[in-house]
C-alpha cells in the first residue's frame, strides 16, 4: 500500500508493478496484462503505449515516441496517454519508479 496517490506528469517515470505481468499470450495471439484482481486485454493503441513503459522513459518521452510513430501532434497524444497512464497507476498496474519529476 502506498500512503498517497501518485500523480502522473510529463516527467514521471513508470514501470510495471512488481506483480503486474505484461505478456504476449500465444493462445489469443494478443498482449495481456495480469495483475491482482485485474485482467486487461489492451487494444492495439494501449499495447503501443505499454511497450514503451520500461522504467527508464518518462511520460514525455513516451508521448514523443508515439508522436513520431503515429505522426500526430504531441499534445493530442498526451491528451490520450496521460489519463491512461494515470488510470493504470490508480489501478496499481503501473508504479512510479521514482525517477525525475515526482
Amino acid at each position, binding site marked *: *500500500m502506498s500512503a498517497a*496517490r501518485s500523480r502522473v506528469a510529463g516527467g514521471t517515470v513508470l514501470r510495471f508493478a512488481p506483480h503486474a505481468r505484461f505478456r504476449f499470450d500465444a493462445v489469443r495471439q494478443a498482449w495481456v496484462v*495480469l495483475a491482482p484482481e485485474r485482467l486487461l486485454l489492451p487494444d492495439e493503441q494501449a499495447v503501443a503505449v505499454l511497450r514503451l513503459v520500461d522504467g527508464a522513459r518518462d511520460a514525455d518521452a513516451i508521448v514523443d515516441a508515439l508522436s513520431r510513430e503515429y505522426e500526430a501532434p504531441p499534445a493530442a497524444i498526451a491528451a490520450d496517454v496521460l489519463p491512461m497512464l494515470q488510470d493504470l497507476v490508480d489501478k496499481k498496474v503501473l508504479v512510479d519508479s521514482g525517477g525525475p519529476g515526482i
Partner: protein
Amino acid sequence: MSAAPATVAVEPPLALLAELTHRCPLRCPYCSNPLALERASAELDTATWQRVLREAAALGVLQVHFSGGEPLVRRDLASLVGHAAEAGLYGNLITSGIGLDADRITALAAAGLEHVQLSLQDSDPDQGDRVAGLAGAQAHKRRAADLVRKAGLPLTVNTVVHRQNLERLGAIVALALTLGADRLEIAHVQYYGWALRNRRALLPSRAQLDRATAFVEAERARLKGVLAIDYVVPDYYARRPKACMGGWGRRFLNVTPAGKVLPCHAAETLPGLRFPNVLEASLAWIWQADPAFERFRGTAWMPEPCRSCERREIDWGGCRCQAFALTGDAARTDPACALAPDHGLLALARGEAAEAARDFFYRGFTVAPAAPAGEPGG
C-alpha cells in the same frame, strides 16, 4: 441483430477457480461452497491437479485462483502454485489466513504466487469470530496480512457484507488500510446455497444498502490510488441482472475438489445437468463441447424478454443459479431483472428482511437443518 447463431464460437476461458478442497476451519454462513461438501477422501491428487493446471494454460486460461474451502489445508499447495507459475498462469491465493505461517508464505512466494486475497468477516473481532464460527479467527487474519506484506506480495482484503456488519463499513475500510491492503473487495452476499439458507439473517434493508453504496462511492474517491475498492452490489435490489461469470461457459471455469468442471461455483445446484469430470475428459474437450457448458452458452437458449433484449450480450441473461433458486426453473429470466416476469419474487424476499433474524445456520459437513420458512422451493 436478429436470431442468435445456432453454434457459438467458443473463446478461450480467462480464469480457472481451482477449489482444491472443501475442508475449512471456518464455518461462514454465506460460504459459496455447495451444501453437500466433498470430504478429503474425494479430493483430486497432486498429479491430477498438475495436469489440470497444464491443460488450463494450454486452453488459454490466464489466471488461476487457488481456493477452497481453505486451500492451505492442502500440503501440496506450494507445489501446485509452482506448477501453475511454470505453465505461465498468474496465481492468486484465496484464503481465510488460518494456517498461514512464515514458512508457508515464504514457500508460496518462492513458488511464484503473485497475489493473496484474504477474507475478513468484520472489523469487530468478536463479530468476525462469530460469523467465521471460530474463536480467535480475527487475530490469525491480522497475522496473516502481516506475513503477506512481509513476503512482498500484494494483498486484497475481501469482506462479504450483510445486514449484520454493514454498519461497520467505515471501520472495515480503516482496518484494510491498517493491514496494508492494496485493494479491498466489498461484496454483498450472493444468495445461493448456504447464504440462501441464511437469507433472513443476512439480507440488508434498502436503507442500509443505499447508505453503504453512497459511503463506498465517497471512500473510493477519497482513497483513489491508495486503496482500490471493488464493490459487488446485491442482486436483490438491482434493476438489471449481473452478467454472471461474464456469461455461461464464456470466460470462467471452476474445478471442484473432486474434479467436476463447472461454469460457475454454484452450478451444481441446477438439476438436470450432468457436469463433466477432469478424470473423464480433457479440460479442452469439456470447454469446447461438453453439453452442460453448451446448455446456456450464448443467446440461443434465452426465453423472452431476454431473447430480443438489446442487453442480451451485455448481461447474458443474468444468473442461471439465481433463476433456479428463486423460480425453480434455471432457463427463466433472472428475477433480478426488472423486466423479468418473476421480478416480484425479490420484493417478497426483501419483505422478509424487514423481520430480522440474527442466528446463522453454520456451514458444515453435516447438512444444516431445514431451510427457514419463506425460502422459495427448488
